[in-house]
């Protein structure tokens, strides 16, 4: 039994925190039972809500002393059950560490606590005509600490990069309560690139209490073109053609017929409905450059077989074009009681093949799929529609989703582009990595957290799990992870 229930541990915790920062009653802890992936739920035993870095460090030291596991949670918007509570663990919620400590307009940096919302950084920087570039679609709610933990992306990654490209420095604490100052105020730091290692580490290595982010100047102008295609493959080819023409769009999104229909019914963005796919291509930058790029993009889209091309000629229209895309998830959510959002990335050239296989599997599993695609960087979000109240449908949706991710690996891609592995995709890690590679991941964790107390069981599968998974996934007569013992 975990020490989390022992009076000694609880009393020590009470001495560290004011009463309102410690939740133990099920009615208080239940709101934290899941993150953004609500299919996975587990009421936490104990929730702590520190409001200072010193409290975080003290909580970690105490948990280490009592060998109690810690699951760190930010705003709880993650989509991979990375912040799913674990039995016998403390849920460490960093939402109250929500101060923007400093904005330096000349150096173009902001120093923020982990609970600061992504969008709040850009709002605070707006006074200096600066902004924080990564913009996951949950940016109104998601917090920067979680963004670092997941290496979050957004619609502007192709041009502006992911979280890893947009942060300079972290203050983080190991499970035994030692401060790590990672990165620097310069553009690099001595030694190994622990900043990259921490980014996307899903709360497995250390707990972040401060992030220094880069701010960028607001582009002078942004403009979006909408193009319709009668064939998904043509739309996919158009994406490559735009890039081959030397344009790096700020955003390049694709939606398929079902996603377009759903978005149009929901927000009336004015999307064409008699097509198989639409592309939204936004270019930004200096005024003159945007004019040139828009011209190039239109020429390329026409040559790529677009059946209709519209350019937003006002900010109002630009936002309207985007409204449909930004509302795509809730819009698709209206089509069925539940949907399951996948997050694979593929080399773009594989798009026609992958979409064809997904539609075949859709028939096979009897579940409809709407496809929303960060086309510029190959990140696919198939939304599988199902009804959790129908016996077996959730399981069916999860199996279908797993198959899509394995397909992504098969064509040279990855099981997660921006949502993280969490608990959700842990089996598919066995498809993407070999036993020695997974062993190295476990060793990286052990280098930071030898007792395995930070978010145990997430992100990297135990090897016996891969053996069990592999037993069910024999491909071409070859058993994955053949070297592992099976039982």
């Amino acid at each position, binding site marked *: 039994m975990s020490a989390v229930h022992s009076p000694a541990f609880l009393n020590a915790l009470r001495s560290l925190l004011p009463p309102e920062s410690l939740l133990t009653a099920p009615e208080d802890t239940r709101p934290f039972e899941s993150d953004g992936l609500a299919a996975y739920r587990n009421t936490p035993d104990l929730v702590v809500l520190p409001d200072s870095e010193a409290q975080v460090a003290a909580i970690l030291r105490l948990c280490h002393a009592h060998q109690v596991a810690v699951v760190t949670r930010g705003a709880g918007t993650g989509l991979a059950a990375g912040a799913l509570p674990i039995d016998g663990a403390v849920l460490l919620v960093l939402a109250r560490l929500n101060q923007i400590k400093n904005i330096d307009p000349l150096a*173009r940096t902001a120093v923020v606590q982990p609970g600061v919302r992504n969008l709040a950084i850009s709002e605070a920087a707006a006074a200096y005509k600066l902004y924080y570039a990564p913009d996951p679609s949950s940016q109104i709610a998601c917090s920067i600490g979680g963004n670092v933990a997941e290496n979050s992306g957004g619609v502007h990654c192709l041009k502006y990069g992911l979280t890893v490209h947009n942060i300079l420095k972290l203050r983080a604490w190991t499970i035994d309560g030692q401060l790590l*100052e990672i990165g620097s105020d*310069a553009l690099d730091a001595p030694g190994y690139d622990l900043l990259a290692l921490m980014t996307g580490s899903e709360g497995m290595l250390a707990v972040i209490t401060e992030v220094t982010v880069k701010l960028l100047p607001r582009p002078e102008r942004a403009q979006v073109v909408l193009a319709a295609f009668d064939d998904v493959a043509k739309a996919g080819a158009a994406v490559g053609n735009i890039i081959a023409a030397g344009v*790096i769009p700020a955003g390049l999104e694709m939606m398929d017929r079902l996603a377009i229909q759903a978005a149009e019914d929901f927000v009336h963005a004015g999307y064409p409905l008699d097509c198989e796919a639409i592309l939204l291509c936004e270019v930004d930058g*200096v005024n003159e450059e945007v004019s040139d790029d828009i011209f190039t993009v239109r020429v390329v889209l026409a040559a790529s077989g677009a059946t209709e091309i519209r350019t937003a000629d006002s900010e109002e229209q630009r936002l309207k074009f985007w409204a449909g895309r930004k509302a795509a998830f809730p819009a698709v959510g209206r089509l069925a009681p539940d949907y399951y959002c996948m997050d694979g990335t593929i080399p773009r050239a594989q798009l026609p093949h992958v979409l064809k296989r997904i539609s075949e599997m859709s028939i096979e599993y009897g579940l409809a799929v709407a496809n929303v695609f960060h086309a510029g960087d190959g990140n696919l979000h198939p939304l599988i529609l199902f009804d959790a109240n129908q016996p077996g449908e959730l399981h069916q949706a999860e199996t279908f989703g797993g198959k899509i991710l394995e397909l992504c690996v098969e064509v040279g891609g990855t099981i997660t582009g921006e949502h993280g592995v969490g608990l959700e995709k842990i089996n598919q890690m066995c498809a*993407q990595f070999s036993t020695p590679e997974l062993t190295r991941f476990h060793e990286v964790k052990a280098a930071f957290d030898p007792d395995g107390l930070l978010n145990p069981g997430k992100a990297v599968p135990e090897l016996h799990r891969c053996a069990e998974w592999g037993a069910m996934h024999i491909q071409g007569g070859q058993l994955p992870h053949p070297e592992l013992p099976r039982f």
Partner: protein
Amino acid sequence: MLNTLIDRIRAAHADGTPLIIQGGGSKTFYGNADEGEILGTRTLNGVVDYQPKELVLTAQSGTPLAEIEALLAEHKQMLAFEPPHFGGAATLGGSIAAGLSGPRRPYAGSARDFVLGVRMVDGTGQALRFGGQVIKNVAGYDVSRLMVGALGTLGLITEVSLKVLPCPGAESTLQFELDEAAAIVKMNTWAGQPLPLSATSWHAGLLTVRLSGARSAVRAAQAKLGGEVVNDAPAFWQRLRDQTTPFFDKRPSTFNQRLWRLAVKPTTPPLKLGDAQWIEWGGAVRWLVSDLRESTLREAALRCGGHATLFRGNAPVDGAFTPLAPALLTLHRNLKQRFDPKGIFNRDRLYPDF
């Protein structure tokens, strides 16, 4: 070819023989002196895959940078981190292992920013693959970026996948007569405005600024900023990238004079550590030819939010890099121990006993 290298690594692991990983040998001066048998990577030669429309290039680590850049140029694409060649023989693997970037770095990103995946062999002779060939990938820890700048101490990089970018349609370089303090403010002020900056340099009273982008954008920025147009600009930036200007290249006047790289917060005012200085990266790097004590320079860099590297000396260097805080040093040792338990790769190159 790869199997031969793996066999040698396994043998070295078995008997604890130290190995020095070497590509083109263009950066042997960089880092601390190391000892061991040379493990050459030049047999790992060739581009494995290049899809211009995917913006991704994969090549074996011993492939010369010049070959990769020539191939990219045929498709009007480039390595946007502008890796230094230092004499011409630089390989892709060496560039990634050293993690050095050129003048475009503050505006486009660093070597590590463009790495999408690596294949490597660890210190036990185990071949491993991390990351991949796609731009977005958050499966597993980012071990491929951990290899960048690790100076080969965690393993032999055998293959690298990189994001590449289209070459800008136009470039123009402008020069301004400005004192150091004013130049630092200018570089930072302009970086906060929507201008197509792609490189900045200040030396001996001259601020030099490169603009890259669509022809129209470069022209508009040029009109806005003013200054004198520099004619042989590509040569200017290449000399700075490869450190072949007299400032970097000349024999120091005394034996104790060494080339230091101070990485600092870009807005740091003039350091007042002597006149032999070249500023790059929007103020974030200050090169000093100096005979000041190591501790003076290290403390100065630390005060300015950064770190100091002894980049080139007149003799083999020890203590090239800023020592790590104890908690970070422990993590480094733990990681080194896991990836290279016998410590066979590039022993001492990064830190003593590594």
